[in-house]
């Protein structure tokens, strides 16, 4: 999938990060493609923050229009701000907190998907996600809550993507390229991992400031 258009979870909510290496019509197409090909499970009205200070007002407006056709709200976090620091404008504080609250609520909604998520596909939800299938290399799962893969997990999984440090990732075979929980990252070893490297179900969570894996007996 393109690196020019990336959704990222962060403590303050979901962010859309755009690289200025391609022209604007391409960006628009990539966003449409992404919203079409991803499995988006946002509640209507979910706020997505735009991080691309190199866009002009009209361009931001036209991106906002694309998102609103998908029932999503695009919010500019760079409005009239110095771009050096990653400070979030107070005006948007309320919406950011909403996203936060939804993530750490404990009783977030769960999206269940009964299929394998393949290379280039992405599942994004502000709640928890259960995949009844594999998450393949090159696929990404981004959840505000927990992620449970009832199969082999080889892609990128990001649980607690809006800052929830309590979030966990579980999988029958946990051999991902990357596990992220809140803002912590754990990377796979630099060798090809086979299913036999992770024969039993495991759980990943944050303990003492790092991501740890633990075998689980029952699920």
């Amino acid at each position: 999938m393109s690196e020019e258009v990336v959704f990222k979870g962060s403590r303050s909510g979901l962010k859309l990060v755009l690289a200025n290496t391609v022209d604007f019509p391409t960006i628009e197409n990539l966003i449409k493609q992404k919203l079409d090909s991803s499995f988006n499970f946002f509640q209507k009205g979910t706020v997505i923050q735009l991080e691309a200070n190199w866009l002009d007002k009209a361009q931001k407006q036209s991106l906002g229009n694309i998102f609103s056709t998908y029932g999503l709200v695009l919010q500019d976090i760079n409005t009239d701000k110095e771009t050096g620091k990653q400070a979030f404008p107070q005006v948007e504080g309320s919406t950011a907190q909403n996203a936060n609250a939804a993530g750490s609520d404990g009783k977030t909604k769960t999206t269940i998907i009964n299929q394998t998520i393949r290379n280039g596909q992405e599942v994004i939800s502000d709640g928890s996600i259960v995949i009844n299938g594999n998450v393949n290399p090159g696929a990404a799962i981004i959840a505000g809550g927990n992620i449970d893969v009832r199969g082999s997990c080889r892609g990128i999984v990001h649980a607690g993507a809006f800052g929830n440090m309590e979030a966990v990732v579980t999988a029958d075979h946990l051999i991902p390229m990357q596990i992220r929980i809140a803002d912590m990252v754990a990377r796979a070893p630099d060798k090809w991992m086979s299913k036999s490297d992770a024969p039993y179900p495991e759980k990943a969570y944050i303990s003492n400031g790092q991501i740890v894996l633990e075998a689980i007996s029952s699920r």
Partner: protein
Amino acid sequence: MSEVIVITSGKGGVGKTTTTANLGVGLAKRGNKVVLIDTDTGLRNLDLLLGLENRIMYDLVDVVTGRVPYKKALVRHKKYETLFLLPTSQIRDKNSINGQQLIDVCNEMRGKFDYILIDCPAGIEQGFKTAIAAADYAIVVTMPEVAAVRDADKIIGELNRADKSHIKLIVNRIRSHMVDAGDMMDMEDINDILAIDCIGQVPDDELVVISTNRGDPVISNKKSLAGQAYNNIVGRICGEQIPFLNFRKKTLFDKIKQILHV
């Protein structure tokens, strides 16, 4: 009724064209009427593999633009009488043909052939979209290596998105000694990731290259393990239940085990 099958892969050079040529010959040898359509416009080479390069008069672009009826562009194989090639243009590019045009050509040929095989270009751009448009089902060819499997996975996702859910897998160029040494992916991992029905495991075999250069696909060579593997795939496409070949060379240890009957 004909069956229209697209042979695709995502990654280039994994053996789509080789597979198309071999399956075409194999199906024809069983008495089927077969047409192979080359859609790799600009980089055609299916004609070379079949030894038909010097017989081409018209091509797919001529047909879809209405310059000639498809029958005029078909090239009959010199050895296998029920095998035909619809070559593509070497000078035009992949945007010269769109999916609807290919659907129209296939619809015209449906019923007159038993199998229509479409050789797809590499990638997921326009050429790929055109090639899959007319297909009833897809055969995805891959190799037992990380990058090829990843691209195959992507292609399967794209096929699903285009509502082509009937997909079969062929794993080509398997080198069993590398698989044993852990330097190549094994079938278990490939099946676990791709999760589609595998109809062929073809060994890496230098006879493939030799036969390619001679313009006579390896499936006709009884001594070739790759040829046997292709023959088995043809059988499976025709609905037969055939176990997979064990093309691992016997080691001394295996031979001792055999003697001891363990």
